[in-house]
């Protein structure tokens, strides 16, 4: 979900009621618990949950790490929308007319305890699409002699998709994942597209073979909720449609993969020719005067 920047400037209701869907794995009991929390300006939902954990109920299980929307650990379902708790302002989800907010674990993930969910299925699907550069010349890949060429436009093509933080919000909001547990999911398919788009990569045939299946990219119905809830604008919905159109071309035999060459290595030290001193000094500097009174700068010994 796009960041609500204005929400941080608004004042949330003084006291809010938080309804948390809890789960105890030992007794297998699911119940709703209500907490009253005093708020302050700029308070996020993660602050609310940690406040509960610190002052009211120590048994509440929450997963978090960075508190600034970079690690993707604190994804929860707030008022029915999968969101990062650390990026959601209390003023964004509550109002003075309705100072109640419900917090649930992410749907489509098995729950470990309370708000913590099990991500192993999600990561296994991510691994299954080979999320790494594949080169035909494996020897060159193991012992690279130079950089691979890539211009800024080609870099922008993959930058957006590389921004994924693996928070699992897209996966939890997908109606197809809800219906088909084997479906690869928006995140894995987006990563496939990211590597097929990458000019340095040469493993598109292997990846097309993986996603061209019953539970692959053809399963997507373009509900686009994945893009609507994504906190980093990675846009998995657009990526899956791009992947499909490329796969369509590939199956018809029209797909042409852009390839990248290996740049020649930089010259050795001895080959470098130093510039004349006139070219490296600022205008107005008298080189002859400088020779008479040199400015000596003592560098610390290594």
């Amino acid at each position: 979900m796009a960041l609500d920047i204005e929400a941080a400037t608004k004042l949330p209701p003084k006291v809010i009621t938080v309804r948390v869907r809890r789960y105890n794995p030992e007794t297998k009991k699911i119940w709703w618990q209500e907490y009253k929390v005093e708020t302050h300006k700029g308070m996020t939902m993660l602050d609310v949950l940690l406040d509960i954990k610190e002052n009211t109920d120590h048994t509440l299980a929450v997963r978090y790490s960075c508190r600034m929307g970079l690690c993707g650990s604190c994804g929860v379902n707030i008022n029915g929308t999968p969101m990062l708790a650390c990026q959601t302002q209390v003023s964004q989800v509550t109002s003075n007319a309705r100072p109640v907010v419900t917090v649930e674990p992410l749907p489509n993930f098995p729950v470990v305890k309370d708000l913590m969910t099990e991500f192993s299925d999600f990561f296994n699907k991510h691994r299954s699409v080979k999320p790494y550069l594949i080169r035909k010349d494996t020897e060159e890949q193991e012992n690279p002699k130079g950089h691979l060429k890539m211009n800024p436009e080609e870099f922008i093509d993959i930058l957006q998709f590389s921004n994924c933080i693996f928070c699992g919000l897209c996966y939890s909001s997908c109606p197809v994942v809800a219906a088909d547990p084997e479906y690869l999911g928006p995140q894995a398919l987006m990563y496939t597209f990211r590597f097929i788009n990458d000019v340095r990569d040469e493993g598109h045939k292997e990846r097309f073979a993986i996603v061209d299946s019953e539970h692959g990219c053809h399963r997507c119905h373009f509900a686009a909720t994945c893009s609507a809830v994504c906190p980093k604008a990675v846009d998995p919905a657009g990526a899956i449609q791009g992947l499909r159109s490329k796969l369509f071309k590939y199956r018809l035999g029209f797909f042409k993969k852009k390839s990248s060459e290996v740049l020649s290595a930089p010259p050795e030290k001895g080959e470098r020719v130093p510039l004349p001193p006139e070219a490296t000094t600022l205008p107005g500097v008298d080189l002859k005067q400088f020779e008479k009174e040199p400015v000596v700068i003592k560098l610390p010994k290594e």
Partner: protein
Amino acid sequence: MSDDEKFRSLEMENRQGFWKASLNPWLIRAKNNPERVAFVLHRVTGFIIIAFLLAHILETDSPVWSQYAPINGLSGWAAWTYIMGIESAWWARLGEWIVAGAVLFHALNGFRLLLTEFFGLGIGKPVEPKPPYEAPTLNAPQRTWLYIEFVVALVLWAFSAFLIFG
């Protein structure tokens, strides 16, 4: 219960399943997402069209199957005329009108999906991500097509009411 079974049972508890996911566009409340409404409508209209198709096959085939299973003691062309009589009732016409709306929406939305899914048209190009982080596909031409298609389907649906009830 083994660990794997435990994992699966936990998984199913928190998964909404096919019916809830296909019939409720507000199962996940996301802002700025009419595509989800279109997805649910596409699926529901698909169900309506399949139901109509099955009924249509039964109806056109009635002179044959009524010889083996007579309706109200009628068989052959008499059964056909009887079924045609039922279909001129107001509720059958209402059903016909609903089918007309379903076909209109399904066809228009299907055309949009063909363009986006097979040819990659109307979806956003990758951009440099900047706050407030809005996905480019949600502001791309496919969104405009979606609104146009909603309006055109509604107008044609209203017109089909004149043809069916008029």
